[in-house]
């Protein structure tokens, strides 16, 4: 893994919301093909870090290089970069006024300038990949939460990104729908996609993650291979967190 090219490099990132410091001196590297799971208690800065990778939040200090471009706020490169960095949100954020197919096509057609017919073919291919080809003509509100999240994943994939970011993709789902989304994510991991996943699904982490990162209070407290972190957490904070979420 270490011989591969880094896709995301963060050095000493700081981020403030008013007086509150959401990220404290965070340094991290994500390499091509790596599957990273970030966990930690709420308010630990894990979502903020993920959103910085996609420039949805701008960092206040430090260096952040994503896909070979050093991010600066308001840079025209940010749009270019976002096309190559897919993002899946906790609340799906599908476009409710467009059908599933249109949700998938709008990015490639309007942003990449792809021909509609080509975009539709791509869209149908990815709907197949997330196992809901039959829902193409429906509106998001007609789908279940799990189906909506799978459409959201397909929407990102249609842009053919180099990295996929997942921000608690199963936290807003009813329990019986979590596995169908995780399954799609596992299959995506098997294709070699670079993934950074903020989640509390430790089963998923065990199964697919190359690197497990534990954050608390805006800092990276611990990181390593999932087996090591799970079986022998080095810090008390990490041990306590794991025992709480693995209690049942």
């Amino acid at each position, binding site marked *: 893994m270490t011989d591969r090219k880094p896709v995301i490099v963060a050095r000493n990132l700081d981020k403030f919301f008013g007086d509150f410091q959401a990220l404290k001196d965070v340094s991290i590297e994500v390499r091509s093909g790596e599957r990273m799971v970030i966990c930690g208690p709420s308010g630990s800065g894990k979502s903020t870090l993920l959103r910085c990778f996609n420039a949805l939040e701008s960092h206040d200090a430090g260096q952040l290089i994503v896909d070979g471009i050093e991010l600066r706020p308001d840079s025209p490169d940010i749009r270019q970069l976002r096309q190559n960095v897919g993002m899946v949100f906790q609340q799906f*954020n599908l476009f409710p006024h467009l059908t599933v197919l249109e949700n998938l096509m709008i990015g490639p057609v*309007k*942003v990449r300038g792809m021909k509609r017919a080509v975009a539709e073919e791509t869209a149908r291919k990815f709907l197949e990949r997330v196992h809901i080809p039959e829902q193409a003509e429906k509106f998001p509100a007609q789908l279940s939460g799990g189906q909506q999240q799978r459409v959201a994943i397909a929407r990102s994939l249609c842009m053919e990104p180099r990295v996929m970011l997942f921000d608690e993709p199963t936290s807003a789902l009813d329990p019986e729908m979590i596995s169908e989304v995780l399954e799609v994510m596992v299959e995506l991991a098997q294709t070699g996609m670079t993934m950074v996943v903020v989640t509390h699904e430790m089963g998923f982490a065990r199964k697919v993650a190359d690197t497990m990162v534990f954050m608390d209070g805006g800092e990276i407290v611990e990181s390593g291979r999932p087996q090591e972190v799970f079986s022998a957490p080095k810090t008390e904070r990490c041990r306590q967190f794991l025992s709480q979420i693995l209690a049942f």
Partner: protein
Amino acid sequence: MAALDPNLYGFRPARPMPLHQRILNSTPVAIALYMLVIWLILRGSYIGAERMGYNWQWYQIPRYFFVLNDEGFRWGEIPRGLMITLYLSGLSFLLAIGVGLLVALLRLSDLVVGKGVSIVFLELIRNIPLLVLLYLFYYVLGPIFGWSRLTASVLTLGVFHGALVSEILRAGINAVHVGQWEAAKSIGMSTYQTYRYIVLPQSVRIMLPPMTGEFVHLIKSSAIVSVIAVAELTTVGRNIISHTFMSFEIWFTVAAVYMVLTLTLSICVTYLERKYAVDS
């Protein structure tokens, strides 16, 4: 399934609504009450007018709508005035939407100057009476820029309602969830593309009811341009009265024409809303 036995389960049935309340709440009684009140008002005005010795000439009214004689069919003055009102209101509303969109987007932008300009514009327009604004446009700016009565009217109404429309647009745009912005940005859309393909199409649905209200409001305030003698519905009414002295009949008629117009509009839009209702 059998009804539960009150003795076995220890309950008593809830009391029904008392009879007098049920009667008062019934639809026929409500309609009868409305009819009574309206009849009393009409009757009262009629008796009052009679006491003044007012000479009612309702039979004169139809010829102001249309004339049908040997020469054929001809529209009367009232429909022609109505057409001018519609033309004036339509043009003004288009302008109002243009002005409103510009002001709303400036207000929502990150530009300090943009925000400042839009706030100054809003406060200026909202704190000047419409009539004074019309005089400013017609008597002051009109001669300077060589505007006609109609141009001055359209500009006045467009700018005045543009300020109100901008607030509706701003509310509609803000009502679209921030997640929609983030999703659009995350697939690389520009601000323009996000507005055009994601945010505005969703806002339109939210904004349709208040926008209809605003258009109805604009149609009604277009009556004010009668003070600079633009030949719209209200001016037509005034002109007819000035040579027939039938002020009661004409003002009732003009009021009714405005009502029919605005009610029709509201009903059409309600129908549209139902047709395009999509739950998100």
